[in-house]
Structure formats: structure tokens, C-alpha cells
């Protein structure tokens, strides 16, 4: 059963892995992706990032896709933790964790989920520049292309 959490609390990787390992099943490999706030350089150097989301929609949307991944890759477990609110440079934003019998299922499903989160889950990032200005991050067309690798449909234009 996919576990989803969206909220301001920091991500504790060790705890999440322990929870995943307590799932019944023959786990052979656990893959993960942890996204962190990049500081940027020069004019685009930032001190922190604020993540906004659409609460009524976020968890349900992530759960739907996480369950799709569980079925597609026959996962033993899957955890997606996405933070919202203000996160300083170097801070954790998102953790995707999947467990499977075999490594390829775990690695591919992790890749799939993070590619989807970039374009399919209603989050928006605002960067707080060192200059004091705030700046909403623009969506990247590269992210749409990455999601399309998995035949995931990005939200319609």
C-alpha cells in the first residue's frame, strides 16, 4: 500500500526506509530519490524556497499515481513524501522510496514517480533570492518530456 504524506515536516530517510522494510514481502532492493533545494549561483543564488500546493488535490493525485506504479512494477511498498512551506538551501523537498523483489523495478518506478511529480502533482515553487526578491519557478518543457517517457499525460494546456 502506497504511503503518501504532504506537509511541512522534514523528511527522515532512515525512518521511512524502516517503515518500508516492515511491509510484508520479499524485498530485494530499495530505490530512492531525494530532492533538495539547490542554492543557485550568481544572480540566481537563493536562500530558500517556498512550496505551495492545492491541498484538496495533492495527496489524492499522488496516491493515484503511486498505486499505478505499485501495480505496474509489482512493488512491495512505495512511499512518497513531499514537503510544503519554506525550505532553506540544502533542505529536503521530496522523497520517493520504492521497494521491490528486484532492483530494476525499484529503480524504474522511482524514476517514473519523480518524473511525474514534476509535472503532475499540483505544487508550485517560489525561490527567495539572496537579493531579497521572490521569484516563481517556471515549468520546464524538459520535465514534460521526461514524464512522457512513461506515457504519463501532463496536465492539458
Amino acid at each position: 500500500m502506497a504511503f503518501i504524506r504532504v506537509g511541512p515536516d522534514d523528511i527522515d530517510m532512515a525512518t521511512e526506509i524502516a517503515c518500508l522494510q516492515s511491509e510484508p514481502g520479499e524485498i530485494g532492493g530499495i530505490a530512492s530519490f531525494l530532492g533538495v533545494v539547490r542554492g543557485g549561483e550568481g544572480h540566481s543564488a537563493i536562500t530558500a524556497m517556498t512550496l505551495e500546493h492545492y491541498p484538496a488535490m495533492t495527496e489524492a493525485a499522488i496516491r493515484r499515481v503511486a498505486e499505478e506504479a505499485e501495480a505496474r512494477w509489482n512493488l512491495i511498498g512505495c512511499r512518497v513524501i513531499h514537503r510544503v512551506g519554506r525550505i532553506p538551501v540544502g533542505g529536503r523537498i521530496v522523497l520517493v522510496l520504492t521497494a521491490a523483489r528486484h532492483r530494476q523495478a525499484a529503480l524504474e518506478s522511482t524514476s517514473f514517480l519523480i518524473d511525474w511529480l514534476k509535472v503532475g502533482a499540483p505544487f508550485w515553487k517560489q525561490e527567495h533570492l539572496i537579493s531579497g526578491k521572490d521569484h516563481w519557478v517556471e515549468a520546464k518543457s524538459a520535465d514534460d518530456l521526461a514524464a512522457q517517457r512513461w506515457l504519463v499525460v501532463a496536465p492539458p494546456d
Partner: protein
Amino acid sequence: MKLLYFAWLRERIGLGEEEVTPPSSVVTVADLIAWLRLRGPGYVEALAETARVRCAVNQDFAKLDTIVRPGDEIAFFPPITGG
């Protein structure tokens, strides 16, 4: 119907949420956007470029021709930047 605005749309419109009762001529998301633009400069600024605006109707991603009905929850926001 209940309208929600996120990210820079929220900032430009100046509020995150409101109840509206558009006229019966508002049938689609596109109609709703056109009607909202009449409500003031913040709305015009937020909704000027529909190419940069995304919409969800009752928590499902919607298109410009998606039908909107009284009682719906309709959210407007920029392209997603999650993960």
C-alpha cells in the same frame, strides 16, 4: 461556485479563494476566464495569457472547453513545478 487561485495567480488576483455566481452564459472554463477578466485589473493580469494558466475542476485537471457548473470547485494555477 468556489474558485481557488494558486502561486502567482493568487498574488495577482490578491486572494486565494472566493465564491462567485457567474451568469448562465458561462458554460465552459474559457467562458469563466473571460467573465473573470471583467472583475478588475488583477484578474486581467493573472488570466491574460491562457497558455500560462492551468485549471482543475473538482480536483481534476481541466481544459478550456471543460464544462463548469454551480457548486463546482474550480482552481486556476500556473504550470506545475513540483518534485
